């Protein structure tokens, strides 16, 4: 049985806090969840456009409990991306905010919940879904790739339970949301607290909004998580001078935080009596794979720590041999019950079995010190993180080329560089990217060059661009 099937035991605990001080207990949350969930038959594919609202969280639990299979999509999604996903996966249902309903005028209304509607699509069902698949998450909400990660019931329960264990989450903890629930890190914060019967402070406000800090103070938030750019913002906001006495611990994941910021936040947090955890993970491993115990943050600066409880990290060289020596770089491999079944690229992949068998080749390069702590050294694949979202550089190049522009994409996290040969095309390329992807405008810049350097076989020589 999965943890969300046994949440009834927390009946009287507060589950959700929203709109300043409104509290909803687990009993009410589950009633709402089941009311929505029971509108969908088991194993039906349901697109859900997620937001940090009670309508969205209740439906998520409802679909899982009813064994229908939600595809978690951020409610802020380009129309073109959504239409493409609908075409590739042909879900039977779509659950979305009423404000988005015009996207799907031809679908019929099944039920209405607060600000959300459940619609039945007109798609003919020509697929089946593997019995272990619980939910589908996007690998990158940004480049428009229809690639989804297939996560199982066991994946979700196992990861939530490991996280709750190493963070020592208790039923009186109160995380406040800082990330979309469609993002694996954001979702893992919800699930690791639900599994312990804790209350979530739900908000669509960001750390840049006054409302966010008011909610955090009024409701005694005990924790929140953040990708690197959230910590950049916190630094700018001089988090060190803020007084929120209820905070017990903070977490960071979703990309590498610079050593300077790790050190700065380690100091700020230690002064305030807040535990600061640097963590590492991927959607392919449900969410979390490693964490750095907060006591070690100064001593092991820059480390992603050790494997989460019940997980195992190892390093492999290019000949597929395990690396046993210290300080030797190799591919980081993770084993654990939270390793997903693999990807789906279209609806017919949904019935396929487990491709990973509990072992994930992360594509990240890492090394290990004498005490067994891991350090990320680089990436094997060409992608960068832009404000926490993975952007595949080859996919982005393909997207720009398909519009008829010569280009090469490279750069580093939060600093994506698009090399183009005709500077007058910049505006058109920009609007093409904004239309078809969710990449934040502040995350990329253009560089005009005479021509794109290529080697004799025609491959782009990225090393000459940097």
């Amino acid at each position, binding site marked *: 049985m999965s943890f969300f099937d046994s949440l009834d035991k927390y009946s009287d605990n507060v589950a959700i806090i929203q709109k300043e001080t409104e509290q909803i207990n687990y009993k009410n949350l589950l009633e709402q969840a089941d009311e929505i969930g029971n509108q969908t038959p088991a194993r039906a594919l349901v697109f859900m456009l997620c937001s940090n609202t009670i309508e969205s969280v209740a439906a998520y639990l409802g679909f899982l409990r009813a064994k229908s299979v939600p595809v978690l999509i951020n409610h802020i999604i380009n129309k073109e991306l959504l239409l493409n996903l609908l075409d590739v996966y042909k879900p039977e249902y779509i659950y979305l905010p009423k404000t988005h309903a015009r996207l799907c005028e031809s679908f019929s209304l099944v039920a209405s919940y607060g600000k959300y509607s459940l619609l039945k699509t007109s798609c003919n069902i020509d697929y089946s879904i593997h019995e272990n698949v619980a939910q589908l998450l996007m690998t990158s909400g940004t480049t428009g790739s229809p690639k989804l990660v297939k996560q199982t019931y066991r994946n979700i329960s196992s990861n939530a339970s490991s996280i709750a264990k190493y963070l020592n989450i208790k039923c009186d903890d109160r995380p406040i949301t800082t990330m979309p629930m469609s993002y694996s890190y954001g979702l893992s914060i919800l699930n690791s607290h639900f599994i312990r019967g804790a209350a979530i402070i739900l908000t669509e406000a960001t750390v840049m909004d006054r409302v966010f800090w008011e909610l955090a103070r009024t409701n005694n938030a005990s924790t929140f998580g953040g990708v690197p750019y959230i910590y950049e913002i916190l630094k700018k*906001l001089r988090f060190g*001078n803020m007084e929120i006495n209820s905070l017990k611990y903070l977490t960071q994941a979703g990309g590498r935080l610079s050593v300077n910021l790790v050190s700065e936040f380690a100091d700020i947090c230690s002064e305030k009596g807040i535990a600061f955890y640097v963590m590492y993970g991927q959607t392919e491993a449900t969410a979390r794979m490693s964490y750095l115990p907060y006591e070690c943050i100064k001593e092991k600066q820059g480390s992603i720590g050790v494997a989460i409880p019940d997980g195992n990290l190892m390093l492999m060289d290019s000949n597929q041999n395990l690396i046993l020596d210290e300080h030797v770089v190799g591919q980081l491999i993770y084993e654990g019950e939270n390793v997903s079944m693999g990807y789906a690229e279209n609806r017919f992949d949904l019935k396929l079995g487990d491709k990973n068998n509990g072992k994930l080749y992360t594509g990240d390069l890492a090394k290990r010190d004498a005490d067994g702590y891991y350090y990320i050294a680089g990436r094997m694949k060409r992608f960068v993180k832009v404000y926490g979202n993975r952007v595949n550089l080859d996919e982005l190049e393909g997207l720009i080329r398909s519009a008829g522009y010569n280009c090469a994409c490279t750069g580093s996290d939060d600093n994506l560089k698009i090399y183009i040969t005709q500077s007058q095309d910049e505006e058109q390329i920009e609007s093409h990217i904004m239309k078809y992807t969710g990449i934040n*405008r502040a995350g990329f810049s253009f560089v005009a060059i005479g021509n794109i350097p290529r080697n004799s076989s025609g491959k782009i020589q990225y090393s000459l661009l940097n």
Partner: protein
Amino acid sequence: MNNTEKYNQVFIESFSISVNQLNDDLEYNTIASWDSIGHMGMIAAIEEIFDIMLDTDDIIDFSSYKKGLEILVKYEVEV
């Protein structure tokens, strides 16, 4: 460039907008480029161009084109 031109330039560059979009209705979260990420970039540019350091409350309150002008007065920047 006088201060008004500098102020306008920061908005135009930070949010990729045109000069005719600069008015009292221009607020945080009303255009796609002025989200939390865009906001931080704009604040950093304001601080740099006027050589000031905004308080936390003022960074958060800097939520519209109009409001920003009021806040800058506190920092003795005449716009």
